[in-house]
Every structure is written in C-alpha cells, then in structure tokens.
C-alpha cells in the first residue's frame, strides 16, 4: 500500500502495441522501459509483457505493456492481447507507406472491437531516418500523398508526411506523435500523453493496489481535458457494435 509520504495514487493501465512488422514496436517499448536500443531484438512470439511506471503530477500510472508480434499471421492473436486494454499504441514506420495503411486497419479494428473508450495513440516511428528536426514540417497542405513524395528529393527517407498522418489522427480522435526509438525522440512523451489521456473513470476498475485510490485523485490536468475531447467522440463510434 502507498505510504503516507507518497500519497500519489497509482493505478495500472493495460497498453497494447500494434503495427506492421518491423516498424519498431519492441524498440519503442525497450526505449521506454529500459532507455535502451538494440539493433537485433529477439522476435516477439505471441506477445512480450513488460511494465513501466509513468509519474504524472497527480498520480502514478503503471503501464502493463503488451508488445505484440508484428508478423501478419499473428494478427489473429491480437484480439487476445488488446482485450481489456485501456490504451493502445498503433505504430507505423514513417518511411513505409504500407505501414500506415496497416496502422489504419488496426485503428479501425480497435475502435470496433476493443474496449470502448480505449485511448489510441498513432505513432510514426523512425524519425531518425528523416532529415528534419522535431516537428517543423515544411509541408503546409493536408494529407497529400503526391506532395509528400516530392519531399524525397532532398534525400529524405520519409514517405508519410506529418500533415497526412496528423489529419488522419485528428479525424479519428487519436493522439499523434512522431518518434525515434533509436534516438529516444518523443518516446516518453507518447507514454506520458497516454497516461494523461486515460480518464479517471476507466481507472476505477483498475487492478492493483492503487485502484481504490485512483478515484480519490480527482485533480484534473489541462492536457487531459484537451485530449479527451476528440477521443470521446471516437469511443462513441466504437460503441456502435
């Protein structure tokens, strides 16, 4: 049980990682959990399970991370892992257009099949392969594939423009980040944002010692309010089935 000196409530959040093979799911987790990066990671059979705490100003979130196998045929196992997940990280490789298509499929699948109200973050990984810094994207237009390809000319491996992915994310009410597991760019931010976006209400039934206290910590933080807006819409759609 939490001591008196540490009144911050703590709760567990189940998070599942989905995405095409070799987009860097396991690497993102490894960066988040161990702050490490390996070129050759062991393959994920079924799914790997890891945990990591995320400290927020008002509470502590313990992520129970299910890192799933990316190979296409493992897709039919996915429902087993995203079952009861409160959050999901759908990862694509921003140098590989097919991976965004696959990511969209996963988003649709989650919105229809996963627990209603699941917090989904769309993450474009391998930012290190592009020649731009952080999020300053010269491209102004929204989601124009042709325009994005035009960028290639500068020796940039990027194939999916920030704007394209972002507009899709906004449309679907997803959190959106571009990361580099290799360099560590934006990795912790993704998990923190998810932690913030998890509504208190969905923590009520959470397992673990912090569960009962979670409901007590009612302090709201700004970012969460902002972020929940679109997601709630998405979850309503998700309830449809």
């Amino acid at each position: 049980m939490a001591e008196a000196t540490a009144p911050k409530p703590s709760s567990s959040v189940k998070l599942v990682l989905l995405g095409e093979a070799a987009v860097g799911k396991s690497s993102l987790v490894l960066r988040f959990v161990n702050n490490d990066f390996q070129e050759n990671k062991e393959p994920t059979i079924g799914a790997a399970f890891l945990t990591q705490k995320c400290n927020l100003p008002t509470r502590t979130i313990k992520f129970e991370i299910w890192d799933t196998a990316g190979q296409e045929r493992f897709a039919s196992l996915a429902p087993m892992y995203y079952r009861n997940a409160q959050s999901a990280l759908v990862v694509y490789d921003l140098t590989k257009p097919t991976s965004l298509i696959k990511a969209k499929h996963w988003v649709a699948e989650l919105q229809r099949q996963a627990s209603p109200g699941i917090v989904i973050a769309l993450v474009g990984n391998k930012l290190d392969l592009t020649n731009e810094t952080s999020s300053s994207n010269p491209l102004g237009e929204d989601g124009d594939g042709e325009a994005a390809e035009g960028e290639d000319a500068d020796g940039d491996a990027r194939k999916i423009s920030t704007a394209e992915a972002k507009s899709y994310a906004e449309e679907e009410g997803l959190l959106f980040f571009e990361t580099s597991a290799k360099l560590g760019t934006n990795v912790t931010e993704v998990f923190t944002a998810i932690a913030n976006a998890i509504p208190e209400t969905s923590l009520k039934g959470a397992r673990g010692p912090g569960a009962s206290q979670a409901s007590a910590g009612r302090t709201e933080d700004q970012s969460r309010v902002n972020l929940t807006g679109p997601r709630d819409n998405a979850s309503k759609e998700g309830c449809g089935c």
Partner: protein
Amino acid sequence: MFNLSSLVQKAQSLIDPTQALNLSASDRNPAKSTLFRHQFRLPDSQTPLQEITAELTISPPIQYSPNATQGEKDRDRDRGYHYAGKLHLSESYLCFSTQPTSFLQTASTSTSSGFTGQTHGAGPGGNGFTLPLCAIRRVERLHSQSYQFALAITTWNGISNNSANETSKTPAYQQKITIQLAGSRQACERFCDGLKRGLKSGVGDVGKLKRVVAECYSEYLLQGDGKKSGEPPDAGLGMLFRYPGDARKLRDRSKMRLWGEYLRENGRNVTLIRQPTFHKLIRVGLPNRLRGEIWEQTSGSLFLRLEHPTQYAETLAKYEGRDSLAIDEIEKDLNRSLPEYPGFQSEEGIGRLRRVLTAYSWTNEEVGYCQAMNIVVAALLIYMSESQAFFLLSTLCDRLLPGYYSTTMYGTLLDQRVFESLVEKTMPILWEHLVKSDVQLSVVSLPWFLSLYINSMPLVFAFRVLDVFFLEGPKVLFQVGLAILRINGEELLDATDDGAFISVLKGYFSKLDESAHPTSTNAKLRAVTRFQELMVVAFKEFSGITQSSISEQRMKHKDTVLNSIESFAKRTSIRNLGPDSKRLSTDDLGALYDRFYAILYERQMRSQMIQEETERRMKASKARAAEVVNGLGETQSVEKGRVGLGPSPTLMDYDGFREFLAGIARWAITDSPTPPEKDPASDRDKHSYFGNSVRRREVSLSPWGAGNPEPADHEFMQRLFRRWDVDMQNALTLQNVVTGIAHIKGKGDIMGSITYFFELYDDDGDGKVDREGILRISEALLFLSRRGLEGSLTPSTSMTGLSEYEAGNGGQTDGPQGTTNERFLSSVSAFIRRCFEYADPDHPQNQEAPGDSGHTDTPDPSALDVGEDSDEEEDLLDLGPEASPKRGKKSTGLPSNPPASGKQENGNQRSVSKAQAEAANAALDPSKPLHITLPTFRMVVLADELLEQFFESSFPASFRISDKLTPPGPASSSSSLTTFSNIGFNRASAASSQAASIVGSSAAGVVPPGKGLRGVLDNIVTDGMRVAAEVRRRMDEAQKELEKNAVHRPGDDEEDEEEGYDGTHTSSTYGGDAERRSVRSEDRDLLEGADAEAMSIRGQEGVSEVKTSTLSPTTPTSAEPGRARSISTATQKVVEFEQ
C-alpha cells in the same frame, strides 16, 4: 441467410475425432490408414495392407553361426524377451506393436485408435519396431514343433559399417528377430505372401537406406571399439559449438554408455526395437550426440528422410537465388534465434538456420515461415544435421503441431483453448481465480506451445521436454503445461494480474535446476530437482491427459476458434476493400464476402471430391487386379479452402463467377435442362456429401454440385467478367467483385447505369458500339429480363393506352408484371430499331441510309413520343394477336386446334420478323457500317420508359446481395428445397427455387388460370430473343448474299430468305441453339414452349420420375403440355408435403 456457420456444420463431418487437427477428409469414422500412419509414425504413402496377431521374440545378439543346429536355434528363441502384439504390413514397412490395435476395415474406431489412449510412456507405437522392408536382409521360415508358423528376420543392422569393410564379411552385430504368427494357416500364408512381395520391391531401396543411416550418429558410435574410422556424422551444431548445459552435470557420458548398450542389443536407427528400457532411457534425457537421431526415430521424420533422402538438397538447389516473402521474413529473424547460443552468433549456425527455414518455406508454401519456427529449428540444429532438421520440421508442422504455424495459426489458438479447458477441468480453483482476476491464461501459455517451451525454460530442460514430446506426441505439451500450473498453484492464486502471474512463472522457470525440496531432511528427496518434480507431476498426475482426450477437446472447440478467426478475417478483409466498397452497405459487403468465399470453398471441395471419385474409380478397377483391399487405399485428403484454416483460394475463375452470379441474380441461372444426374439417396444424405463416405457412394460429377442451379453462360456474363477483371488475370478477387458490384449497384443513378452498360459493349473503348454490339446489347437486355424484371416497373399513362388496346384485342387483362414483360419485349424491339435509325454511319457517304427505313427518323428527343407510339403500336399489333389467343386458350384450358394456332402464330411471327426486317433494312446493309455513340445510346434508352426504368432500377436491383430474394410463390416455393441438396446454401437454394418458381409456374400456366400469364410471357420473351437472333441471322445472310451477288437487292432478298428458312436452312444454320431457331421450328416451339420449360425444370429438380397421371387427363392440345402440367402439379404436391 447464408453464412459461414453452415460451412462449419459441414466441416464437422470432415473431422476425424481422434486426430481432430489433422482434418482428414473423413467423417466420424476416421481413415484407418491415417490412424495406422499415426501409430507407427509412417509417411503418408503407407497404408495398412495386412495384419496378424504375432509374438515377437528378441534374443540377445548372437554371433553369426551358420552351422548352428536346429536345436540351438530353438534355444535361442526361448531365451530373450517375448512380446505379444500385432504385426502390420504396409507397402514398405513391417511394424510390430504391443498395442492391440487393428486397422482392418471391419475394426471399430476404438480398436484402431487404441494407441491414442494411455501409452504408459511407450508412445503410440508401444513396444515393438517399425522396420522398413528394405532394412530386412533375409526372412527365413522356421520349422519348429512349438509354432506352426515362425519367421526369423535378419536385418541390415549396421549396414554402413558393412560397406566399409566389404559386404561379404559378416557384421559384428547381426540382428535377428523371431516372430511367431498366430492365425490360420491361410492367414499366415497370405501375410507371408504380402511380405514377400514387399521385400522384393524393397530391395531397390537398400541404397537409399545406406545413405540415410550413414548420417546417423549411432552408426559411428557402434563401430568396432577402438577402430573408429572416418569423421563422425553431423550431430548438430553442438559438435562445433558445444552442447548446451554442463555435460558432466547432465551425466552425458553414462547416458551414452547406456544407450550404446541398448543399441547394440536392439538395433539402431531404422532397425531399432523398442523395449521398455528404451522409453525409460528417453525419460531420463537423451545424450547429446544421440539426441538428434532418437528424435528423428521417435517422431518418424527418419522415415520421411528415408523416402526422399535427397529432398533437402534438391529443394535448396531448385530454388537457389529465388526470393519470396517468407525469405524476407526469415532474414529478419535469423540474427535473433537463440542468440545466447554461440552457434547462432556465427555465420555457420546462421547459415544452417537460413537454409533449413528457406527449404521448408519452399516445400510448404502455404505455411511459409512463421515466427517461432526460427526458434524451434535453431534448437533442432544444435543436435542434428540440416537435412535431419528439415524433415523433423516437416513432421512438426504436418503432424505434431498441425496448424500451429499456418497463416491463421488456428492450431495454436485451438490448442490454447483446449489447454484452458483442461486447466478448468483439472484445477477448478485456479481456473476460477484466473477468471476472477481476469488473467487470460493463453497469453502466458501460448509461447510454451508455439515454441515448444524452448524460450520459456532454460534450454537443457526444454530439450528434456522435447525428448518425451517426440516420442509421445503433442499431449506432452499439455501435460507439462498443466504440471507447471499445478506446481505453482499456490503462488498463482496470490497473483492478481497478468504481470504478477507472468513473474511467478518466470521465477519458477529460472529455478528449475534447484532442489524441489531444499529443506527436506531426506537427502534423496533433496536431490530431486524442480525439473524432475515437473516431469513426475506431468506424467504421473496428468497421465489421464491422452491424445484422445485432447482430440476430443479439439473437436469441441474447433468451431468456436475457427469462427472467431473467420470473423476476424472477414472483418479485416471487408475493411480493406477500399473506397468503392463504401457504396455498398456493410450487410451487402458481408454477404458478398460470405458468398464469394463460400463459392470458392464449395468449388474446391467439389473438384476435390470429383478428383477423389475419379481416383477411386480408377483405383477400384486397378485394385481388383492387384488384390489390394478396397477402401484402404484412399489417400488422406485435407480439408482445404476454409478461411480459418490458412491460405484459401482467393481467386474466382469464370465458372466460379457464373456460379456466383447464379446465386445473386435470377437471370444468371440457366434455362437449359440439367441432366438428372443425382440419385435421390445421395441427395438425402447431406452429411456424407463431403465426407469420405464419398468413396463408397456414387457421386454426381457435376461441376456445379448436386442440386445447385446450373449457371447460365451468356455473352453478357463474359463481358461482365472481363469488365470486373481489372487486373487481367482471368480471375476475380473479392476486391474485383466488390468493386464490380459497387459500380452497378452503388451508383444508383440511371446515367451511370447506362454508361456502364454501354461501356460493357464498347470493346475497343472508342466510344462507339457497332451493329454487332447493338444486337448483342438487345440480346443481353432480353437475357436479363427473361425471368421478369426486378423492382417496380410502374405502368405509365402512356402505356395504359396501349394495354387497353391490347386488352381489347386479346380480350384479356394482364397483371402489371405480365404487361411489363410484354412491353419490355417490344421496348427492346423498338430499341433495336431506333439504334439503327439513329446510328451514325461510319462513312459520310452512308449518311442517307437511315432514311430508307421509312420510319420517323427525327433525332429530336422531344418528338420521340409520337414516333414511339407508332412504333409500339406496330409492334403490338404484331405481338398482340399472337399472345392473346394463346393466353385465352390456355387460361381457360379449352382445347384448341393445334395446327391452326400454330399457323396463326407462325404468321404473326413472320410478320414480326418482317417488320423487324423492314425496320432494320437499311441498317442491315453490311456495306454501310454504322455505330452508335454513348449519347445516342442514352437517348434511345431514355426514349423508352421501360428501358429507362430498367436501367434506373431493375438492372441494379437484379443483383441481390443481402436483401433477400423475394419469397417465391407458395405454389412452388419449396419444390427445390425438397429435391435439391444444397447443403447449407440457403441463398443458392432460394435463388434456384425462385428460378424454379418462375419456370415452374410458366409450366403450370398451361392449365391453371391466372398462372398462364407467366408461361406465355416467357414464351414471348423467348420469342423476342429469337427476333434478335433472327435479325442477326439475317445480317449474316445478307452478308453472304452480298458476297455472292455483286448487285444487292435487299427487299427481295429478305422475302426470299424468309421463305427459304421455312425449309432446310433451318437446322443447318441454327441447329443446336434453342434460342436461335428459325420460324418454322418456332411454330412447334410455341406450341411446346411450355413443355420445353417444363423439361427444364424437370431437369433442374430431378423430379423426372414424378410423372403422375393424377392430373386432369384432358390435355387435348397435345400430350406434351399435359406432362408439363403434371410435373408442375407434382411440384405442388411436394410443396404440400413439405408444408
């Protein structure tokens, strides 16, 4: 509503209860040969030919002594071990087992599958041997007093050593086994004859045998002590990079010694005899260098290798340099397979892994490569050569872990479900706890099964599990898994979430080498490691978990698992259909998906069945000559094509497309009678339809399956197919079909429909359709409308006048549908004419051509109303009298004079043709090529209200996807249901019954009033098609004439032709094509039209026997309609019976 669950039901009959996952195409009575192969781990080529009760005597190895007296030989036999059991003979194996299993056709399933029960550690083969016939050197028949029939078998034990020091020399260890046959003299003789034949054919394989055993480490091990020659055979990477674990701690040396003794006495590799010590030795763990060989032996992959010793190398050579998706996936994982083992940090180890995985991916492209295979193969490669690992991987994927690595991984998911249910059964408290704390067991246990505990337990222990697994089979995985949970039960009960649950087990696995009872005062007990404890719990406490109990559970859960996979696949697939699919509703997409895959599945099953049937017939005739017991020879066939089971066909060929259309559109069902091929008994027997009982039954070899409506084959359908086949691969994907349907159904605007239709006929895409195309379009319009039109075609005011006119003429008021049909026919006639009228000449000098027709040629659409009316009138004048008298006659059921009416109709028909001819006169002139453009086509269509409605609603509506086909009229609704065996194809059956109802009622229409309409109208439509045909024919003739005569005189020609056709030209020109008969033969058709239709139903329904005389015998018109009527009434009777 059709859905996949009906497939599931059907699949039930395919599943073999004892080998649930092998999915042999057998019903509840699994193929004996499959069971036989499973018991002795034999390749698929083997079937049980003979069996006999026998006693096996194994004497200690004797020095070869040719001079031994008979008495000495008898003494030898008395010494040693005796086992009573069964001796089995297959094509190239002689197997002995203490299991009293029998594979005779007469044996009950339980006798044949006895080996799947408790094996007491002996594995399915029990004690005994599995001896390739080529490994038998000599068989002597012993004469003794105590046994009537005794055989002494000398094997090629140690054959590879022989070759080293010349064959003439006597082997150091000669293996001789004695078998006493128990049975009648005749039975014994028969068995010996079979054996003799097998031995003869086996002689040729001795070379293969030598080659295969040379790769076995035992051959090297058992070479004469001290004088080992040559390099030891490859016993895995362990020889180069050391074997995992501490050899001393594993007591490898003493294990090796024990095995050396055992093999010396009991034969090695192919000649090995399994005695109880063998199983005990396996339980304590195999010695490193023999491990690979024993795995190969116990799993049976050795026999696969014996069958094709060079397959591995050949496969690699054959596909050298080729690329595939599997290879890409393999490459990604090579560096991360057992990376802790030094062998896989080297290029040598990685190279071997790459080659084995690649070779397998080529031999089984359906499986290709699945993650986890890399780990399993890496583990195998530590102990065996590449070739050995390759065959063992095949055995794993095909037999031991069926479906585990398939593209849907259904085997994995199913076994997880089975494991959960076993936990629930054996550890209810733990199970309840798991449910309560919402821990999903399979997320923990899935990797155990998928990678055979290799990356869960420390390697040394995982290999101990594998030792037993290869001997005893998949049940070992379950037993070990249950034991793990049982041992950790208390701690697991404290774990309340996935994380805690996983960490308890992780902790346990890391301490497997520690003492299980560290605090015990008993030193012996203290020495027991946790792993030993695990083995004891697994095989003692859970000895009740047998292969048959697992199969039973697999059977139970198979449907649920497959359904969930399929619904996942469907969901994913539909979601991925792209933007065009948005035009259709989700229900429609779901229905299209189901229908598409159902047809592919159905077609595959059917072709497989037909093939099997053909093979069976061939075999049956051969078998008689070769004295092979019939029924034993059937090959194991696997249930294929089901989405949940892995890769299924995804392309639909043209025939499949026709079948697909026949299921969703009425017009796509053929009119021609299908031969009444079905025997009623087989139709009733729905369940065995797909079962392997097929082999005992004559099956219909119809490519459409018994009872399914035969699809039509019209040029329009070919065009549609080509249009949908955007990838030009002569086959359609689901995507193509959805896009195709979406373009027709989804647009919902008439212009789109018209354009679509026009484009179908614009072959070269130049925006022009020529004369030929116009005729084809009109033919297609009639083809599409010949079963009536879909949607509500409302009679308009302008038409009412005509109807009245017609009504006045015929003295008969029609229902709206009837009027519509007639009107549609005239619309089409008018369509042809207008097309020609407004067609653009291809050359300017022909500009004048349309004027010759003598009709209004005002291209102004506003003026069309006038022109149209006159056109219609003219047509109807021709058609009206023809149709009405017939209708009147038939609806009243009064007899009329057949010749008279025939003449009358003939006259009418001729006048129609004449009108047509005149109308199209100029247009028909082949010297004036012409075409219509899309705007013209559109104008012509829009000029006619009916055609307009056709394009606006009825054409799109004729594709019925998820909206049900309109319930067929009660009179004939279930006629098809009773006689069609459509095995779950409700949709198809609905469609067919619908079709039958239309045709049926047309037949019935000969007599009952009110129903006559349909039949008449059908005739009219058919006539319409003839009209089109006639126009076409005339064109051809005109062409011919033109070629013949330099001077062209169209009018006269036409008249002359007309006369000519009444005569001999008819049959020669149009013989064989029912729809293109000429006028004279038409006369008869008109009379007998109803009968022709009736014939077609009869063919479709297979009720030809139901020729009753229960009906009114007054059918004075002719005998034919009477029969038609009787059939229709028979159909009605059936319906009543049904209701």
